[in-house]
């Protein structure tokens, strides 16, 4: 087995063990999306029927999926920051493991947990009777879009882990980012119903395009234009995140 596979696998396995033995941390990061889907979905059900023209939970589900991706992937770097704080990372850095394998191992594990969470949210949607217009193919499509969004967000999170020195700052950033990013996108309401300044910000938010793409898979048979826009925006976003991340990692992990 090539050395880099052996190392990356070792890091990946460590994080998967964490995932299995730390179910509460997953439950905790699912808390917000679940509350939003069940309670906000329920509360606005009749209020929005006239303006949105369909079941609000079905309308909300793609927004919640994107929010799940954002919340979980953006917090993915915290574990590395903990490793940095308690000396585990230094110890690992004194071994002949490549620096890239540390990042890739974590990156893969974060994406696995994000996809697991998305599946749970889709399951919850199913329980509440949200049909997916494009069926099983659509589910794969939704997971694909989730991954495209998660890719860039996870890299940003790992970058943050190397830029910050304590996890308190990281939690603060998470706290002021995730929910506002949801409201400044098409996750909860159509863009047209946002105030102009909010709409402007929402149009600059990659989440909007992920949500629009997902929504077209859930509500209709899939809107080619929305999916194309989504793919372009998310690929640019991922590329930018990777470029930024590499700059930081090169400096911090030399």
């Amino acid at each position: 087995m090539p050395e880099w596979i052996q190392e990356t696998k070792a890091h990946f396995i460590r994080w998967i063990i964490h995932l299995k033995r730390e179910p509460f941390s997953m439950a905790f990061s699912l808390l917000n999306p679940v509350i939003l889907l069940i309670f906000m979905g329920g509360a606005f059900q009749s209020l929005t029927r006239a303006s949105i023209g369909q079941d609000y939970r079905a309308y909300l589900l793609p927004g919640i999926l994107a929010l799940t991706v954002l919340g979980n992937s953006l917090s993915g770097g915290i574990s590395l920051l903990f490793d940095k704080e308690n000396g585990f990372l230094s110890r690992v850095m004194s071994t002949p493991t490549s620096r890239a394998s540390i990042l890739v191992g974590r990156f893969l594990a974060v994406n696995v947990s994000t996809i697991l969470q998305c599946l749970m949210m889709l399951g919850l949607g199913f329980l509440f009777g949200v049909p997916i217009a494009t069926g099983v193919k659509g589910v794969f499509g939704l997971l694909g879009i989730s991954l495209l969004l998660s890719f860039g967000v996870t890299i940003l999170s790992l970058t943050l882990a190397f830029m910050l020195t304590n996890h308190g700052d990281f939690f603060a950033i998470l706290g002021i980012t995730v929910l506002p990013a949801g409201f400044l996108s098409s996750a909860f309401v159509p863009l047209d119903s946002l105030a102009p300044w909010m709409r402007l910000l929402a149009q600059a938010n990659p989440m909007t395009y992920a949500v629009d793409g997902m929504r077209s898979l859930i509500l209709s048979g899939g809107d080619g234009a929305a999916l194309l826009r989504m793919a372009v925006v998310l690929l640019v976003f991922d590329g930018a995140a990777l470029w930024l991340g590499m700059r930081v990692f090169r400096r911090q992990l030399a």
Partner: protein
Amino acid sequence: MPTAVVRVEALRKSYGPIQALNGISFEIEKGKIFGLLGPNGAGKTTTIKILATLVRADEGKAEIQGIDVFKEPDRARRLIGYVPQELTVDPYLTAAEHLRFYADLYHLPAAARQERMRELLELVGLTGQENRRVRSFSGGMKKKLDLACGLIHQPALILLDEPSLGLDVPVRRDLWSYMLRLKEHGITVLLCTNSMDEAERLCDEVAIVDRGGLAARGSPTTLKSQLKKDVVSLEIAPSDGDHEKKRDTLIQALSRLSRVQGVVKDGVQVKIYVESNETALPEILQCAGALSIEINTITYSRPGLDEVFLHYTGRPWTGDPKTHA
């Protein structure tokens, strides 16, 4: 000439305005236990982190088995096992999962791994505990596992930063016996410590580090015998108010005595360095009597490493946790 496993030359390192290393140099021969002894902040950890390829020196050279740690860190990393001061075990993993993790980071083939894991678990007395999560381990067990992780790839050199910090006496003894066993296997040990006791018992050679430089180097026995001194420690009887003044007067008077080579304050005690206590004791007592200063206790001893430290740095030893507390 025996081959040096570690060769460090004129290392300098500053962190902003703080100079951590001020041109430190030493070599360690194969199979020796070498101790860097000094108080906290003397530069021990910086030295060990440079050898562990985690910190780059500003100037100087550091080689492990002839490999430059700055130019070829990756080759150097294959030769060392680094066990940091803090516990670096992962509470969610079992002991066996730790060893497997490090075996993979050191690219051990899967076939060699099982046997090596068994040996190490036995060495550190964790056989039978390997499938327990480390969360439930005691501090001593965690430290033992930490050490085992650093040995998985049979390194030529093991770097131990304050290994027995915060451990109770039986666990310390266990760790010491492992280190002596490593030495039997030809593994070179670099040990940072601020425990005199640890340095005296384990180290073939000790380097006293003070303010980023080496104050002295040699085997504990040589260092002590070089002093050619006895130490008389006395404590004057408690009295109100002028206690400090009395002690200072006594120190001044004592340092004028012909048989006295040096006098220093060490906490509540006054330490007097003399060539031989037989001839010096009566003189010291007379001197105190003449000043009508009452002496509470007086003892004498052969010098220990703390006297060596004092002699070379001019300051009393305060690094040992025992005297700290």
